[in-house]
């Protein structure tokens, strides 16, 4: 072929070479580097610093002796043991409850299944530390309303049930974590191809055997995945053990970290213990995440998506009504009772009065909302911080997801790896890492400011943003963007006109998925708040600690109202999205 260029050709050639040279280090690489920087600064450095602090001496030498020494101290050893015991107990209980209720609402002829299915997810909405406080009010050994009621009724002087202690912690955590298993398993049961079961039925095998031999093995991956999620959350859970354990000297890893940092005002020794414990949390979380991926990958092959399906329903016959009553009772006790308690106690004139109408007032709510600077500030802080964090995290998350899902640039794997990190880092660890990173070590000191909570929220909720926006981006086929490019649109125009409008629902979902949990966040902010930067969660927690139970509950009521309104809104938004599809 003729390679001799005419003058005009050569000019053209030189011109396009220049254009290409300019673009060689173009927008793609810039965005990639920006994304990597964000993840490194916000997530990777804090975690690395935790490990660094845990495993090196003050002068920077590797040191495992101190780590072993810290771990063998009775209090740390005991906290580890407690964390594991609680996690095991909660996981087991949640799995039993979750699988049972999931089976009940998908595979039996239980009445009102649709409504029941929604109700079983409601515990997700309630912040577990508020639930724990309500249970403390109901079942504390001396003043608990239920205990007092039965003491008077039966004339006994021992409490009916003492909510303080390991049993109470496990039971209360289970109430709020079992939906993880419930959602996974009911989802799997719904997606499962019924023909497998049908063919077994046709060959004359009874339903019990089918369930045991076919259904159960098929949903095992989902059960394990749900159980692992529960274990992950429970292991690093702060709220419930802080309220039901600390009082009687029971600590788990997160509450011990809190106690160390809080009591010692950040001494080297305390930070060291904190980082060692946090390292253990990170490692175990990583292992759990790894196992979960493994199990879910396997599960994907096994559950065949059959969309229009009509599974065989087990006829409950005589058990129908008793099981319905049991389910309703379960929801009433675990959801309704604590919620009502929060509202009623929040309206009491003084804590300890009987829950009667004449002792109720709306003054508490008014005082908290309009007069008391501390609570007003807390509400304002929480709203501003969660709105800001949700907005920023959503935008940054969208950018990072875009690079991971859509772009063809070298070095993307770094981002894919970094993007996995936020999924497995518990809130306590984030808080600790953020303290290490943003307390002047790198020239920026955000300690005791709202800024430090802000960066912590971004790190903590990045996983949600990544999950939601990358799912949305995967729905947008590459050719849609390419079609826009071939119409003459620049990369940026294609993003603005095609990609962004198409993933907007995913971005909105990400926003609310961050905003709502951030609004009621306790674990991270309790380690980070300063005198003027309390959040709603911290304020409720502090009020409760100070014995201001009534105000704590009044503030909790307000938080619950905001949360429920938010949940309704997000449900509306996501359901209209599905309607369009």
């Amino acid at each position, binding site marked *: *072929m003729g390679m001799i260029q*005419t003058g*005009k*050709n050569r000019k*053209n*050639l030189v*011109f*396009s*070479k220049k*254009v*290409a*040279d300019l*673009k*060689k280090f173009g927008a793609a690489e810039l965005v990639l580097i920006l994304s990597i920087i964000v993840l490194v600064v916000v997530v990777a450095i804090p975690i690395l610093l935790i490990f660094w602090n845990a495993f090196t001496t003050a002068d920077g030498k590797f040191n495992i002796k101190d780590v072993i020494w810290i771990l063998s101290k009775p209090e740390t050893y005991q906290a580890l043991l407690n964390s594991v015991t609680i996690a095991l107990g909660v996981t087991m209980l949640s799995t039993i409850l979750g699988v049972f209720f999931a089976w009940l609402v998908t595979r039996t002829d239980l009445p009102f299944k649709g409504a029941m299915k929604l109700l079983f997810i409601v515990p997700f909405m309630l912040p577990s530390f508020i639930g724990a406080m309500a249970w403390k009010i109901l079942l504390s050994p001396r003043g608990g309303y239920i205990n007092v009621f039965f003491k008077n009724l039966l004339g006994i002087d021992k409490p009916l049930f003492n909510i303080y202690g390991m049993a109470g912690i496990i039971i209360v955590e289970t109430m709020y974590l079992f939906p993880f298993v419930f959602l996974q398993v009911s989802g799997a049961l719904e997606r499962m191809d019924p023909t497998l079961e049908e063919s077994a039925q046709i060959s004359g095998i009874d339903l019990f055997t089918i369930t045991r031999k076919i259904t159960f093995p098929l949903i095992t991956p989902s059960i394990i995945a749900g159980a692992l999620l529960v274990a992950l959350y429970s292991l690093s859970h702060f709220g419930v053990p802080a309220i039901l354990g600390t009082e009687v000297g029971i600590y788990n890893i997160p509450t011990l970290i809190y106690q160390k940092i809080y009591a010692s005002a950040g001494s080297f020794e305390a930070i060291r213990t904190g980082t060692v414990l946090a390292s253990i949390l990170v490692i175990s979380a990583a292992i759990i995440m790894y196992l979960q991926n493994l199990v879910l990958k396997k599960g994907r092959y096994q559950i065949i998506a059959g969309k229009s399906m009509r599974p065989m329903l087990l006829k409950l016959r005589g058990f129908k009504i008793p099981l319905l009553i049991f389910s309703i009772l379960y929801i009433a006790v675990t959801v309704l009772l604590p919620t009502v308690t929060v509202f009623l106690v929040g309206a009491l004139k003084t804590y300890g009065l009987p829950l009667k109408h004449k002792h109720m007032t709306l003054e508490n709510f008014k005082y908290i909302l309009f007069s008391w600077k501390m609570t007003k500030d807390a509400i304002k802080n929480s709203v501003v911080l969660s709105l800001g964090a949700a907005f920023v995290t959503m935008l940054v998350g969208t950018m990072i997801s875009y690079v991971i899902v859509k772009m063809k640039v070298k070095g993307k794997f770094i981002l894919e790896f970094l993007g996995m990190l936020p999924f497995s880092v518990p809130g306590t660890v984030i808080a600790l890492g953020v303290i290490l990173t943003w307390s002047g070590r790198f020239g920026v000191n955000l300690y005791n400011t709202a800024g430090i909570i802000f960066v912590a929220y971004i790190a903590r909720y990045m996983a949600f943003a990544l999950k939601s926006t990358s799912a949305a981006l995967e729905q947008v*086929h590459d*050719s*849609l963007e*390419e*079609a*826009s*490019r*071939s*119409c*003459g*649109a*620049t*990369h940026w*125009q294609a993003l603005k*006109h*095609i990609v962004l*409008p*198409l993933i907007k629902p995913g971005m909105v979902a990400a926003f609310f998925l961050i905003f709502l949990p951030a609004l009621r966040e306790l674990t991270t902010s309790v380690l980070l708040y300063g005198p003027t930067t309390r959040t709603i969660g911290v304020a409720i927690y502090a009020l409760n600690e100070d014995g201001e139970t009534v105000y704590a509950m009044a503030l909790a009521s307000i938080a619950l109202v905001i949360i429920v309104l938010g949940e309704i809104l997000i449900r509306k938004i996501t359901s209209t999205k599905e309607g369009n599809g």
Partner: protein
Amino acid sequence: MAEVKLENISKHYGEHRVIENLNITVKEGECFTFLGPSGCGKTVILRLIAGFERPTNGEIFIGSSLVSSAEQKIHLPPEERKIGVVFQDYAVWPHKTVYENVIYPLKIQRIDKNEAKQRTMQAITQVGLKGLEKRLPYQLSGGQQQRVALARALVSKPEIMLLDEPLNNLDAKLREEMRFEIKELQREIGVTILYVTHDQEVALAISDRIAIFDHTGHVRQIGAPREIYEKPADKYVFNFMGVSNFIPLEIKNGATIIEDSNIPVALQPPTGKKEALRMLAACRPFDIELTRENTGMKGEVKRVTFLGATMDYRINLGEKELRIQQDTQEALQNNLLFKEGEDCFLKFHNVAWFESQSVEMGVS
């Protein structure tokens, strides 16, 4: 107007070498078809030309300018190549109406509002979607979406249009209409069309020239439709262009017989190819005549299928099964309809000769 030139283009995905050393020049104003089986790399070639992929090796010229070069690390972004593309999966934007989809390229080019409106309506009319402007894509059938994509590609009057199977979702009648429209468009505005398909009928009807690919992504022949149909370069091309009969023959003691049998065949290999011991005779179903007069080649009718205007036969000739078709009307008139199980005689017309595979192997 512009020609498109691919020079030594290779595209590898890791170990997978999809395209290897491809050289093609598509002339200005030409309708050029890439014809090949599924997975041979047709879409990849279009994506290279459109600028969505970078070649592993080689250079691409559009008009006189070099748009892609692996050696010189040149890559002009897609939006600056001024190419209209119809994607295999339509790529109609689900959040825009038909009208918004089609007017988009004009908006990007900042065309005057009135003109843009008028051109958009014209394009929509051209593809037969008038009245559906306000619909969203999910309210359209697959074929209608495909036509939106077509209208969107042609509305900006590009110099080059890349069409990836743009008609595969249309019914036969509509396909013919759209085929005609595309051809008209090419004549009218002189656009260079690069057309991808695995349907040889469309390819023959629409193209000025065709490149035939095999499944490994190599070009087997480039030529005008008639040239390819009448003078296929090899067995592969012949087979690809339609239903084919291949009869392996050998020449023994001066007589032509079916390979590894003693059945004589009244076929003479073309001169110059006589020295080969084994040959492959190829012909289309219509190029074998069924008769009752003894031609020396006797077959047995295995199956008859009535297809309306044509009759479709499976005939056994020794071990070999042949596919033969005849015009129903003509056969009726000449009393040449055969029943299953009946004997018949064969007469060959238009036989193409290829080197036999086994001969090649025997030599090497």
